[in-house]
């Protein structure tokens, strides 16, 4: 697949998913919390296209409303991580010296740790809530962006146009914000696209484990967990939320792959290599 096609497909997929979430009240036959105890575990078809769950709630409605949780949490977590990581990375990259040294050390230690595991542990001890999920995902999430921003700023710091801006009396903040950061944009954008996919899966994982979105919120991960005991009689409870998440991740993956090729961005392996 060409990279341009990937970007188009990814963007189109994301627009469809975002619209589905936004238009949930009009698309869903009932609310996401409306029980129908007479029709528990109802099979897909008829008025309930994707069937009904353990309390007779409409699965389509819950999948549609779940889009808001998945996209919302991922956007908040990536936004926070991106903002914090970019600022810290720029400061370290431009200032250099001991500031840079200290931040690099902190990042190295943080990266010496499985991120999702720490997020799970944090959410587990703090209890299930959406703000806790965002916090847990952002606490380690910023490191990737900080490394990329730092590397980009450092490679550009000594160029002539920076010296020229400095000679004209521009302050460091202005030089970084106006002259350097825009050049680091593509690499951060690609990383953020993959980060969104990762955050959506992570939110689903936390909710699946019961430490993410608290019930009765229609998080896709929580829906899969709720449907698990009824796998044999009502597989639709597990299948549809999973498909929704897989499609969202696929759209982001296509977009990220395409953007990386189009913008000619190089991410080092899985975001980092071992220090030697």
């Amino acid at each position: 697949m060409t990279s341009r096609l990937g970007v188009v497909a990814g963007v189109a997929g994301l627009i469809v998913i975002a619209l589905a979430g936004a238009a949930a009240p009009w698309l869903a036959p009932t609310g996401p919390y409306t029980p129908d105890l007479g029709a528990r575990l109802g099979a897909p078809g008829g008025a309930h296209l994707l069937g009904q769950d353990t309390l007779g709630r409409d699965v389509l409605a819950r999948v549609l409303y779940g889009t808001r949780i998945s996209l919302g949490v991922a956007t908040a977590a990536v936004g926070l991580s991106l903002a914090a990581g970019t600022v810290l990375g720029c400061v370290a990259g431009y200032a250099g010296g001991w500031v840079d040294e200290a931040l690099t050390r902190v990042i190295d230690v943080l990266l010496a740790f499985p991120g999702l595991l720490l997020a799970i542990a944090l959410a587990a001890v703090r209890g299930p809530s959406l703000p806790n999920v965002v916090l847990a995902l952002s606490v380690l999430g910023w490191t990737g962006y900080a490394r990329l921003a730092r590397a980009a700023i450092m490679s550009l710091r000594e160029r002539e146009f920076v010296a020229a801006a400095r000679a004209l009396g521009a302050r460091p903040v202005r030089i970084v914000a106006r002259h350097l950061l825009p050049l680091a944009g593509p690499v951060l954008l690609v990383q953020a696209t993959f980060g969104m996919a990762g955050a959506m899966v992570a939110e689903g994982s936390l909710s699946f484990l019961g430490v993410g979105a608290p019930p009765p919120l229609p998080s896709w991960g929580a829906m899969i967990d709720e449907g698990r005991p009824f796998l044999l009689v009502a597989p639709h409870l597990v299948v549809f939320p999973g498909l929704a998440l897989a499609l969202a991740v696929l759209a982001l993956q296509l977009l990220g792959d395409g953007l990386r090729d189009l913008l000619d961005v190089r991410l080092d392996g899985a975001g980092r290599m071992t220090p030697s």
Partner: protein
Amino acid sequence: MGTLPGRRLVLLLPTVLGVVTLVFAFLHLLPGDPVEIMLGDWAAPADAVALRRDLGLDRPLAAQYVRFVGHAARGDFGQSIAFRAPVARVIADRYPATVELAIAALLLAVGGAVPLGVLAAVWRGRALDRIVRLASLAGVCLPSFWLGPVLMFAFAMRLDWLPVSGRGGLAHLVLPAATLALGMGGILVRLTRASVLAALGEDYVRTARAKGAPRWRAVGVHALRNALVPVVTVLGLQAGALLAGAVITETIFAWPGIGRLVVQARDYPLVQGCVLVIGVTYVAINTAADVLVRAIDPRLAEPA
């Protein structure tokens, strides 16, 4: 060369201390009172005071940190609240099960992904290449907490080929290991394919072919050895995802490992001990991967 593993071991110490510090920092410095979180809002004040004293939370932060590091160094992680037993013993009982699952998943992922990635690169653009690329994309996109139940439904409930859950013989291992391996396998296939493709274009592969080496030897020995360097590095890094994924897989298949303990909500000492043990395991795996990479590629063995 002989001193290299030793040098890596020396470097291991500060990293492990860093991990210990990190765990302490996250559980003690973030907003929220652990005692309140553990006991809930309606706890009797006397109970809260007692628990605070038991956990040493009434002391100054620096004293708590020194105590924490000292105890962790001796393998003492305190008492689990849920199990009413020492955390170290609870973890030791279950650690082998997690290691067994992780090794099985690792073997499955590497054993499947590396050959497929090589074949996809050699037969670039052919049918197998397309199928492999599509499958690897699916492996990356399908979350394990969805794949696990679906595999369980298909192979344990419908076809009745494999046990549904629990730990026992080899048959019990298949579904959890496959669930854990698929995401990692997807990443490894893509990476192997890309790095073998890059290596096939190198001069040394052409030289090997020009000197009369058969095609399988040029690919399997000359190209693969170089292509494996990034694969092994990412393998080490992906071990983190594997260990975190074990939490999910163990939950789905009722596998009695330490991953399930992490979600033992509100048991501070237990979660802390598990995260610490898994974190140190991860650091050890990455160190091993680093040593392995330098053994594969002697150019990297020179001290930087």
